[in-house]
């Protein structure tokens, strides 16, 4: 649990979109999934998860329905809209490009010392 870094600005939306993209899921499960997948490296403040969900829903990237969970309680399940899927693809691609570029620059800095 040591040295958990903060989530870079703007990436929470991307992560949420990615997780929701795997299938309809409620808020608590998204928090759990994010924590598990990121192997406790990335700190997702649960408090900012819900505003993010509502914001994405408001922008039409997510849609939500109230359904029963396996334990029989009603929960709000989020799913990706078509617009959300498109957004996820473009954002994922640009994230990919960004990390590659950052990696490249970092690698060059070591070699460039010669």
């Amino acid at each position, binding site marked *: 649990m040591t040295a958990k870094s903060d989530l870079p600005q703007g990436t929470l939306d991307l992560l949420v979109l990615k997780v929701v993209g795997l299938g309809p899921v409620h808020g608590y499960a998204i928090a759990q999934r994010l924590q598990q997948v990121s192997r406790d490296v990335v700190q997702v403040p649960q408090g900012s998860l819900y*505003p993010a969900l509502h914001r994405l829903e408001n922008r039409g990237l997510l849609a939500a329905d109230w359904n029963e969970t396996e334990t029989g309680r009603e929960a709000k399940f989020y799913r990706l809209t078509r617009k959300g899927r498109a957004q996820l693809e473009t954002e994922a691609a640009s994230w990919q490009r960004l990390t590659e570029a950052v990696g490249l620059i970092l690698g060059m800095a070591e070699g460039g010392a010669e």
Partner: protein
Amino acid sequence: MIWWQRLWRRKQMEEQLDKELSFHLDQHVADLIASGHHPEEARRQARLALGGPQQVKEQCRDARGTRWLEDLLQDFRYSLRTLRQRPGFAAVTLCTLALGIGATTVMFTVIHGVLLKPLSYPEPERLVALHGVTEKYGDQWGFSYPNFLDCKRESQSLAPMAAWRYGGGTVSEPGQAEYVDGREISSELFAVFGVALSRGRAFLPEEDRPGAAPVAIISYGLWQRRYGASPSAIGTPIVFDGKLYTVVGIAPAGFQLDGSADVFTPLGQVTEARMQNRAANFLRVVARLGPGVTLDQAQAELALISRHLAEQYPDVDAGRGFEAQQLRQELVGDVRPTLWLLLGAVSLVLLIACVNVASLLLARAVSRERELAMRVALGAGRGRLIRQCLTESAVLGLCGGALGVLLAAIGIRPFVLLWPGSLPRAEEVRLDWNVLLFAVGASLASGLLFGLAPALRAPARELEQTLRAGARTVTGSSRRLHSGFVMSEIALAVVLLVAAGILDRTVLRLSSLDPGINIHNVLATRVALAPGALQKDPARIRAAWQDVLERSRRVPGVQSVALADIIPMREGYNGLGYWTSAAPPLPNQMPIALASTVTPDYLKVMGIPLRHGRFFDGHDRMDTERVVVIDEVLAQHAFGALDPVGKRLWIQAIGPTKVVGVVGHVRHWGLAGDDQSQVRDQIYYPFAQVSDALMRLFSTFMSMAVRTSIPPLNVVEPMRRELRGGTGDQILYEVRTMEQLASSSLARQRFLLTLFGIFAGLALLLACIGIYGVLAYVTSQRVPEIGLRMALGASARDVMRLVLGQSLRMIFVGVGVGLGTAFAAARLLEKLVAGVRSTELSTFASMISVLVAAALVASFLPARRASRVDPITALRQD
């Protein structure tokens, strides 16, 4: 969900948010318990992980994107609540605003209906009116029939084009004889306006010629009135001015040219000699711009046509041009400046009202300062507070505006009726969406205006001080703002007061002017001879007129009677060129005089003084020498110091004449307008010497002037009976007393004076209330200070002087600022209203002393209250 749905389902959304978050918490707690935590500990950890539930919810609400609207609604409800809590404050501000906005809305409604709204014809922007323009006398000219025909034939860009002239006559069949207004129109008139007749057809081109079958179109109103709206009216005969016409069409309901008319006949069938006279400019012309043609292009084409005409007919058309103007402007005429003037004045009243409300709000804001500081301390942002203040003033403004619109809806009809003469396009003046939009805009703008100062005072810094300080401390900046408000109110009031004062002076001065006639006990009425008599030969017509004169003299109360073609200060005039030598110049270079043909008693009836020579008598007949009498203005222009009596005068359309007398000048153009008018020379010539050829034409518009020994309106009914004639269709119409005509010639000035008087009174009242309110407030805040002064030895008189001095400073600064603006306003009035002189300094002085006196009275009460402060209680108070 669409954003507005979210607004309505706010409660549901709150419940869902709650449910979602508690589901999260429960789930987390359950998981933690499952992994071996103690339930208490599990709950604690889960809450920690999620964070404060209220903050999370608040962020979620922000994420909805409709937050501002929800806040707005909240602020709205809050301000309604605060208004209800202080009904006195609410009543005063709402009444002030309702008056201001109501008056402004009335003025805008009139301006919108009269000036701004497009005419209710198809493609109204393409309708134009055409005028003749000469270098010497400007653009007051109509068209002569030959010039009209030439322009119509030559013009490509203005088609169709139509002409009409004013007429009128007696409809004697079917039904009772009745005098109605008529128009002689060319065949394409309805096509120009683009309107279809409501029944039947328009005139055909071949009917618009001499000798064609006599046909007539009647107005919708006449059709309803005389034919009971029967469809079979088409094709039936109508006797108009003794002539038989066949009705071929019914004009559209409400159709108007220059005023309404009931009978339309073809212009081309008129056989008078002046239809062929290129110099007789008596027609009004309208046209429609062709597709894609601009007004400038049409103008250029008209210039070309007028150049051709000038080459062809240099004696009459040289120096004459034609001008096209938007028909709407033509119809509206000279009411435009009056309307804008009134809107300006009314806006000043609204501005004063706003300033007043602003100072009331500011006083309230100062006493609410601690409340606001408390809210900032609890976390409200400054922007949020400003927004709340502005919402409050917008609510005030809108409520005031709603009341104002109500006032306007009630007040608009009486206002239009009050308008001197008839307001053009009055039927278009009504409240509609545009007006409502204007009212809402004015209300919001006012709200912003008076709400801004208090809103910007929302505390930002030195919270602690504000919270700690007593609520009664007035900071220097708010006192400055308050006196700023008072000063601007005074300045605005000065402008309105001075304007009202100037108009008052003007009306006083103008009504004391000598009209040149004795207006008391004189009746002026038009006479329509029995149509049967009109068809007879000239000698019979002369006899008919002689009969009218003799019968009138027999009516009890009548002293003397005369006929005249024009009556002073009434609409209508006949301008003729004149010259003093046998070789007259071209008609377009002649000086022009008002020519009036009268019977010998005219001078006696009107009470016009005879200066030299003689007036007409029974010896001036067709077979004697042509004689004229001129007024002193023409005598001065034409003969200078020489004695005109016995000199010769050549007059257009009359020929050589001998001047036999000089009489006093008559203010024909009204008390206000005569000094500025272009045509002031006057010529009288005997009715007995009107040529046989013109006798019938003249007889269609002759009037009668009657001097009475009893109130003139009392002789009207006996005279109507006496003159009705054997066939019962000889009619008096447009019956007026000369006193009515003289006073209506000042109607515009009086009307403006009344309104400006009301506005100025309102402004004075509001300014006084403002001064009183501000002083009362500021002095009550200064009670501890005053108490201290008194404890240190100041007398009641010193305190009075202190408060009054403070008020005097505000008043004088306000007056100083207002004076400059008032001078500018006076200049504007001088330009727009005939007879106004802006340089009467005594008016300024008297109006300002009225204002200062009123303002001092308003400040006296607070000052006296301050002087009666008991030092002990005052010092203990805080």
